[in-house]
């Protein structure tokens, strides 16, 4: 694994976020500063949940969506497509690319772990429960994983490349990397990187059956506890985050001050991972991470912040910690923050938090962390507010084996 060529001329000029913290970048940043998840009870009325299962999720606040999505399109969209389009509109405004901009050369790349879950559930219910002739063509159209990316393109007539990546928890950083390649290779003038997920009862219940979700236990309430000794799973989240990427020259030409700059990206795979969990390939992943940094001509000591994808998953956080230790060797690790304790897993919160943290936004200490796990030898930052970083590493190790990293610097 070598990682992408230095992407120093690719910058982020806009960010739109919809999630449990509310609508917009400011609401999201405020949530990060508060450092506590905003959780709702998941609807258990369909009966998918078993007794004792997880009950909470970071559900998106959707009351403002209709104002952001053209009504004629809104009613035809799946729930995640609505989230994605709304986040896109916010990102374009943030990037000073509102109405009147021709998006002939705008590309879109989205990442999703599960795709449109509610639509798929409804469609399967029709086909398997009522008979194949009951399948709704409208639902089928929206059941593809790329429906959100397509609806984003339809809304603003974005005619550049359009792609959706599904690589579980690594989807967001892989999408960021693909966008950087498109800009670097001249395939798109700007790229909207979207990460979107919904958290519907059936998906929530199935994740719980896989023992992926945190439950209330004798160590505390139902919460994610990234890197904690007593971590027991993640919090499912829904929402969307869209970042606007373009070249530094493009941003400068329109006098737009970027939020942050993508320095490099890299990816690897851990073949020891089983199909629905994390593996034990920390030595190999640590080597891959070191190789990525070396290729980017970045010494680990130059990294002064790590925004970790640790989610509270038992094996995932272990792999994350041991990979970082393997990569850093004898060197001390920089301060680590794990925003998924507050944002939950999925729905773009991690990408948005990582970009904002790299840009200097302060994050509260990792939610849910109380007691260090001696096996990990890594603990998230629990001290005072950190100074803005000079270089931030974002890490995403996914169940199933995929891994992705990004180096982000302030603009």
């Amino acid at each position, binding site marked *: 694994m070598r990682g992408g060529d230095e992407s120093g001329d690719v910058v982020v000029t806009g960010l739109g976020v919809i999630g449990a913290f509310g609508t917009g970048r400011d609401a999201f940043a405020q949530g990060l500063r508060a450092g506590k998840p905003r959780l709702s009870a998941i609807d258990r009325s369909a009966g998918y949940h078993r007794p004792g299962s997880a009950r909470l999720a970071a559900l998106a606040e959707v009351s403002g969506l209709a104002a952001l999505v053209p009504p004629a399109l809104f009613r035809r969209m799946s729930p995640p497509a609505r989230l994605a389009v709304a986040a896109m509109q916010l990102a374009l405004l943030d990037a000073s690319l509102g109405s009147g901009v021709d998006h002939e050369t705008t590309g879109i790349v989205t990442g999703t772990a599960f795709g449109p879950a509610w639509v798929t559930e409804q469609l399967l219910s029709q086909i398997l429960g009522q008979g194949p002739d009951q399948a709704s063509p409208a639902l089928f159209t929206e059941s593809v994983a790329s429906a959100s990316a397509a609806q984003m393109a*339809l809304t603003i007539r974005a005619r550049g490349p359009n792609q959706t990546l599904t690589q579980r928890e690594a989807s967001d950083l892989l999408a960021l990397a693909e966008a950087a390649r498109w800009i670097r290779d001249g395939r798109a003038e700007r790229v909207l990187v979207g990460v979107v997920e919904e958290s519907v009862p059936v998906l929530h219940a199935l994740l719980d059956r896989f023992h992926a979700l945190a439950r209330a236990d004798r160590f505390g309430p139902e919460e994610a506890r990234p890197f904690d000794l007593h971590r027991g799973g993640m919090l499912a989240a829904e929402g969307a985050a869209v970042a606007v990427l373009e070249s530094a020259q493009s941003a400068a030409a329109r006098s737009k001050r970027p939020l942050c700059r993508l320095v490099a990206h890299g990816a690897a795979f*851990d073949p020891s991972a089983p199909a629905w969990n994390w593996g034990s390939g920390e030595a190999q992943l640590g080597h891959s991470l070191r190789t990525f940094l070396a290729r980017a001509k970045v010494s680990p000591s130059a990294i002064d912040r790590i925004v970790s994808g640790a989610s509270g998953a038992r094996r995932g956080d272990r792999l994350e910690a041991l990979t970082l230790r393997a990569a850093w060797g004898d060197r001390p690790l920089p301060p680590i923050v794990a925003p998924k304790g507050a944002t939950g897993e999925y729905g773009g919160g991690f990408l948005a938090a990582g970009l904002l943290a790299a840009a200097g936004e302060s994050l509260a200490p990792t939610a849910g962390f109380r007691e260090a796990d001696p096996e990990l030898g890594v603990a998230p930052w629990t001290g005072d507010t950190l100074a803005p970083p000079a270089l931030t590493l974002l890490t995403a190790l996914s169940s199933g084996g995929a891994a992705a990293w990004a180096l982000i610097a302030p603009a």
Partner: protein
Amino acid sequence: MNAPHRRAPTAIAITGMGAVSGYGEGTGALWSGLASGRTAIGAFSRFEHAAYRTQVASEAPAVAPFPSFRRLSIADRFALTAAREALAQAGLPARLDGLEVGLYFGSSTGGMFESEEYFVDLLAQPRRGAGIGRLTAQPTCSPGETVARMHGIRGPVETVASACSSATLALGNAQAALRAGEIDFALAGGSDSLCRLTYAGFNALRAIDSRACRPFRSQREGMSIGEGAAVLVLETATSAEARGARILGWLLGTGASCDAHHMTSPDPQGAGIARAVAAALDDAALSPDAIDFVNVHGTGTLHNDAAEARMLRTIFGERAAHLPLTSSKAAVGHYLGAAGAVEAVATVLCFQHGAVHPTPGDGAVDPGFGLDLVTGTPRHLPAARFALSTNLAFGGTNAAVVLGAGPA
């Protein structure tokens, strides 16, 4: 090394190919079937379908199990089978641990077929829904991850899930990573299996022909769904030359675009796919005049074929009337997320055999298109050097690749 004429400096060598199709296991079976002019679309038994609107599909024969892996989906096994063949042909070891390899896959439904079995139980008894392990292969990324796991891949692994353009887009991602020097080798391809969701869904859209599909024919009524996988081993020309690998063909250029027109219908003018083709030609540093034949998306739906016909006239002008045209989908059906991979393999096989495979399907070619559809028997084209392959998808997602012939 006998490189193709005007080869772009960043051409990517294809040194291995593998396939599972309705004709059987392997690229040999695929070519025999394609060249025969007989379609692999017909009766199928993957699932009970008497209640469905149509009764035909292209079902691949069962592939051998992989005992070291549990709970594989059919799509996983297709992918493993195709990858094994491709690696062997490329002269690469089955374990890739020591090499810089990335995997770029396309899939539309992953292990959906197996998931449906689970959901039948879950919907009947929501709280019980026994055997969650049956869902382990459900994710769209499962076929690619399974291949990576089996072969010890340690580089980037990513799955494109952009419906019917997925595998073609994955080829583009692999090409970009190779050109950037991020990896030395790429396994690029796709895998999808028949499932109730897509079969019922496309029937709900009235997009499936009740008979084997008939692309570009006047009486065409829709597509036919197929299943299978295809994998290509890609590397830089330098790498292939250094290790003395046999170059089967070249991946010369890729392009992508979005119609931004409609969720299911293509831009009727074909403008979106024309932009993707123009980008692919530009990427390959080739003019349209250099293209010797085209393996079109060619689903057999009314609107898709019409849009592609307009694209061909836009790109090739009057030459479109004389440019040999084929559609692999009429032979093996529509592999959805894997379509671009099997069609890229089919295109390279055409180069290797000096002939463009015919497009099965009865009835006259639609005279309104003014296209030269290859029908009946293979069209001998031994001097062919460059070909175009296209894919269109839900949401107006377009992708195109320009492929080149390997050394004679």
